[in-house]
């Protein structure tokens, strides 16, 4: 679906490449997470993949065809949902989608109500978007991206800054699209989303790919399951963390059990955040 080989990009006036030879592939039907801190090159990569930037070196192939050979017809096959709203504030949700449906060449008017329904905005279809909350605006962005029934969906931070209910709704739409056969390229710095949604994730830091694999594999390879204990020592409440592996032989843990009063104890699976920090040495901001 997407094949990228030795992708390099440099903005004018910069001494250094923003992207330093990225190579990866996205298979049909998978949700591929592209993870990295702000300024790591995630958005630049996405903008190159969707044809909003030029000047790259290396190869990009979409649907098996080099991106240079694509024309605007590509936009009938992909949908793009940005982190920030992209619609007319003084038009209603339905009017906004009607404009973009016409621009996409979509003649089936029922498609508008269908996508509004998918993202849970049908009841607010005739409300001007200026009155929408942030979550509703992002859902409308997603609805716009879904209009052409895309084979490939690009999502840029789709749950950033949203309340858990709205974020959950968006994640459920993404999973529905995957079930319907859509490939999803998800750009995010929210590891929890990536862990929940993605079949594979790529870690990008300073324009370089550090790892690509399934979240579960990465957690197994680089993560460390642990036991967190809240205990009281000499009247002071303390928290200690021990690796689950070889716990029975851990002298510090055994000493703690003998000497301190245990208040709480729970095991914790390694998170993708921990793996990211361990692999890249960078924190997600």
């Amino acid at each position: 679906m997407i094949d990228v080989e030795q992708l390099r990009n440099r903005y004018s006036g910069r001494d250094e490449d923003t992207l330093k030879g990225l190579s990866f592939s996205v298979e049909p039907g998978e949700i591929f997470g592209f993870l990295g801190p702000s300024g790591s090159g995630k958005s630049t990569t996405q903008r190159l993949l969707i044809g909003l930037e030029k000047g790259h070196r290396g190869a990009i192939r979409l649907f098996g065809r080099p991106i240079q050979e694509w024309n605007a017809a590509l936009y009938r096959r992909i949908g793009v949902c940005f982190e920030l709203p992209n619609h007319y504030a003084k038009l209603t949700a339905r009017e906004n989608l009607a404009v973009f449906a016409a621009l996409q060449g979509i003649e089936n008017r029922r498609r508008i109500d269908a996508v509004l329904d998918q993202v849970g905005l049908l009841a607010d279809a005739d409300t001007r978007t200026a009155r929408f909350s942030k979550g509703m605006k992002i859902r409308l962005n997603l609805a716009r991206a879904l209009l052409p029934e895309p084979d490939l969906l690009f999502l840029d931070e789709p749950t950033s800054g949203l309340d858990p209910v709205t974020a959950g709704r968006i994640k459920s739409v993404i999973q529905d699209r995957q079930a319907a056969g859509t490939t999803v390229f998800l750009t995010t710095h929210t590891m929890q989303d990536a862990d929940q949604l993605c079949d594979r994730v790529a870690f990008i830091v300073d324009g370089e790919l550090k790892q690509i694999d399934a979240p579960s594999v990465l957690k197994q390879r680089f993560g460390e399951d642990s036991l967190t204990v809240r205990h009281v020592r000499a009247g002071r409440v303390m928290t200690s963390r021990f690796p689950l592996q070889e716990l029975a032989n851990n002298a510090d843990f055994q000493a703690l059990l003998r000497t301190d009063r245990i208040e709480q104890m729970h095991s914790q699976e390694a998170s993708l955040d921990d793996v990211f920090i361990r692999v890249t040495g960078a924190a997600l901001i």
Partner: protein
Amino acid sequence: MTAWLALLNAEARLFWRQGLVAAALVLTLVWVALLHLTPPADRLFWLGLVAGMDVIAMGLLFGFGLGLLDQVQGTPTAWRLTPTPALWFSLSRTLLLSGLLTACLLLLAFLVLPFATVWPRLPGLVLLAIQAALAGQLFGRWLSDLNGFILATALSAPLWALPFLGYAGWLDGPLPWLWPLSGGLYWLTEGALSSPVSLAWITGLQLGWILVSAGLVERLAPRHLGHRLGERS
């Protein structure tokens, strides 16, 4: 075609709901009232001055305002991700904005002067409106904040002002008639009653300025609305 009609429809709603139509109408009626205070014999002269200044002020302000609104709303990014050619966006806005400005100028002219006086000068009003609409779009595409708009308006003022000096008879020779609003203003002096050769020359020059402005809007503006597909890296 459906896409272009949808764009026109969206732009028309935008103009109406953002209050551009109301603002233009109120401004025009204020000018009508003020022009009625002048002696009837002088009204044609004052109409030219007012029409020229009013149209360029509204064109720059509305064009820049719409450009700024586009940036705030993020709509151009979404437009670029559709198969619709970039040119259609500029065309629909130019058509709507110049249409609004032409309507205001016609209202102003017909409420102030007799029909027979206005009729031979109609092309001038249309030329002024198209030029002002494109100049406004140019500002909207090139400038990203209010400070830039104020500076650009101040710096470009001589460009807009010179034709008025020619129109008012304060500057002789061809110099005042070489600038972007000249053709429109020249038509307002004697209109179709002028010498056909002079009219042809100055109208051609005005159309040239319109083409240059359109080219700057469509091709060279930093906020280009086209996508990059089909271009070699």
